[in-house]
């Protein structure tokens, strides 16, 4: 009998998305401004589709495109966490060398997650049954059913937290040198009810604009992974101009005004600033400045080459 190493018995496979996933994504896209973050169960970098024999087990895994390309951010993957300071939080609560059993108390710790999604036809190394998932939310007055179909079950948080909030914490209380202590010194739940939401415009993942907020508190909380690269700028008149000039204003503020230096890590993975002013705030991931500069250089070069080309053509034609 011929022996075949089954792990190498591998061919290209076609994926046929089911209708309820398509409809669910349409609904998510319509509602995306309502939510900050979601969490897809079962999570993991690689998943299996129980109802499709070509993606069902062993080496026939699939990259979790559902959570990665979700209109509402929601993927957890330890493999891709090399450049984030939420890595410690993920390793402690989700997965390190092996998966950590998801517990109910995590739901409160995941304060920016306001949509919990269970995929019934998907499995991964995370062992969380549909009944365990349901038990988290049944009789839980903080949540309500958001969507249910053959393959999907989702609950939404009724009182949602915000990506950006104002909070009262004294700067000197965070004056630790060690990042780990900064991140773990306070629990978000300790400040429950003491925070105010802020309206913002998110141009893309790297740029967020806050026109102004009225609050006596001076501490500004941004609930995405802490990174030294996050920069808080003051950009007056930002909204008055079209985007091509908005970017010029960003460059001016970045190079001449500079970032707010009172930037710290807090609440397991979030960013925290002590503010001087309360209007025309732009949060920008510093490398984005480089991306903006490159776009201007490409544009200028393209225009220059086009003019050069046209000039050459015209000279040839008329002279």
């Amino acid at each position, binding site marked *: 009998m011929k022996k075949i190493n089954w792990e190498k018995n591998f061919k290209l496979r*076609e994926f046929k998305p089911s209708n309820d996933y*398509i409809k669910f994504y349409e609904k998510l896209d319509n509602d995306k401004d309502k939510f900050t973050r979601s969490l897809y169960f079962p999570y993991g970098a690689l998943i299996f589709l129980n109802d499709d024999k070509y993606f069902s087990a062993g080496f026939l895994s699939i990259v979790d495109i559902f959570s990665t390309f979700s209109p509402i951010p929601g993927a957890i993957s330890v493999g891709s966490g090399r450049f984030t300071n939420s890595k410690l939080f993920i390793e402690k609560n989700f997965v390190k060398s092996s998966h950590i059993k998801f517990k109910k108390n995590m739901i409160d710790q995941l304060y920016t997650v306001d949509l919990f999604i269970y995929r019934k036809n998907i499995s991964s190394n995370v062992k969380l049954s549909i009944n365990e998932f349901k038990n988290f939310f049944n009789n839980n007055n903080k949540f309500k059913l958001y969507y249910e179909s053959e393959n999907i079950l989702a609950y939404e948080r009724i009182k949602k937290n915000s990506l950006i909030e104002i909070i009262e914490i004294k700067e000197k209380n965070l004056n630790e040198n060690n990042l780990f202590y900064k991140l773990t010194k306070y629990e978000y739940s300790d400040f429950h009810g003491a925070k105010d939401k802020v309206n913002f415009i998110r141009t893309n993942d790297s740029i967020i604009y806050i026109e102004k907020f009225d609050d006596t508190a001076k501490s500004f909380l941004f609930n995405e992974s802490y990174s030294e690269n996050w920069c808080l700028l003051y950009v007056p008149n930002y909204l008055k101009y079209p985007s091509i000039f908005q970017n010029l204003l960003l460059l001016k503020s970045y190079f001449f005004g500079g970032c707010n230096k009172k930037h710290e890590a807090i609440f397991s993975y979030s960013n925290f600033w002590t503010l001087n002013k309360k209007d025309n705030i732009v949060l920008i991931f510093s490398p984005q400045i480089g991306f903006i500069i490159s776009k201007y250089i490409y544009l200028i070069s393209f225009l220059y080459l086009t003019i050069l080309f046209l000039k050459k053509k015209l000279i040839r034609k008329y002279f």
Partner: protein
Amino acid sequence: MKLKNNSSEIITVFFSIIIFFILFLNLPHGFILGGDWTFPFSNESYETWTNLSTWNSKQNFGSSSVLSLNALYYKFFVEILFFVGVPLKYIQVSIIIIIFILGQLGFVLFFINYLNTRKLIYVILINIVALSYIFSPPNFNFLMMGWILGNISYLLYPFFLFFLFKSLSKQQNLNCFFAALIFSFSIMQVHTIAWYLLMSLIFLFDTRVDNKKLILNYLKICLITIFLNIHWIFPLMLDVNQGEQVLPSLLYKTAATKGMDLFLNFNQIFKLYGSLFNEHYETWFKDSFSYLYNFLAFIPMLILLLLLQKNKIKFYKLVFSYILILAISLIIINLNKEDFFYTFSYLIPFRHLSRFIIIFPFLFSFLIISMIFSQFENQKKYKKILIFSLLIINFLNLEPWISNIKYNENEKN
């Protein structure tokens, strides 16, 4: 004369049509997923996927995505296809077919120009070798795993070389620009920097080539390529974690790095195999040809050696020696991999050594065509037989591409 020119174009298009049908009939007609393949499956997920930003809020409560900006040209390519109306589910297949045909066209164009021939018989023979170049074992393994950027880099190389050589004779700046454009597109697969350099280096010893000009134009291409990649180079310069992004200090110790090159040995290199730990091509080739598969892979090498032995052009012998030196170097580095990457930590992005097998099919194809060109019209009949045997045996490489590229309905239990 005109008829002759048209004939070579018609025959090349005919081979392009063959490639189209091989792929169109055998690739899955829908979203390709599994392995490392990723692609958006709906319009909403497509919107998310096309978003280009230095920060990615989608995963792990947000993380830096500066390096992902180097996929700009690929995303642009996908967006063009989407814009002209290709349905989302057919975009992956369209890209595969387009780049494979570009691979064949680039290969044929390069050799027609390099050998300065438009003789019909040679164009046919070049097209036959082009088939075995684009349908090579490493290319199969990359495609199976979903390393489409590796496929793009590999298949665009002949076009890169075509423009590099063109720049030596005419329209220097324009041809360097086109070569840099291809380099920029290919550099999305970071290994391209080393692959293209290693594949091109040998031409410095070609007596027909102006060495100084070749080096200068290569440098010029590199500079233009840097300019065409400032969209990720500038952001990287402003990233406080730039060192860790480009040269992650501990990656040479990971299980993936160690495991990836388990099957990298001379046997694999000279069969052009082992480009991946997973050995998909090897599995199917063995499955189809049983014990014959070893001979089918080694006989072309023996024929090449026989043909080389009597060849008067020293450069071709030098190419073979170069292949040997590269193979030996790869094996030696692999034996001391951990120490090597600890010492030369700036080479960590190239730590998966078995991916370098992808440079050999071009060098071998170059030798095969050179043998054909220099010896086909030789009076000795046995050499013609050897050349035809070489082509036919290489042609058998296509078998897994036709029989085992996708699962047939109900094939998998």
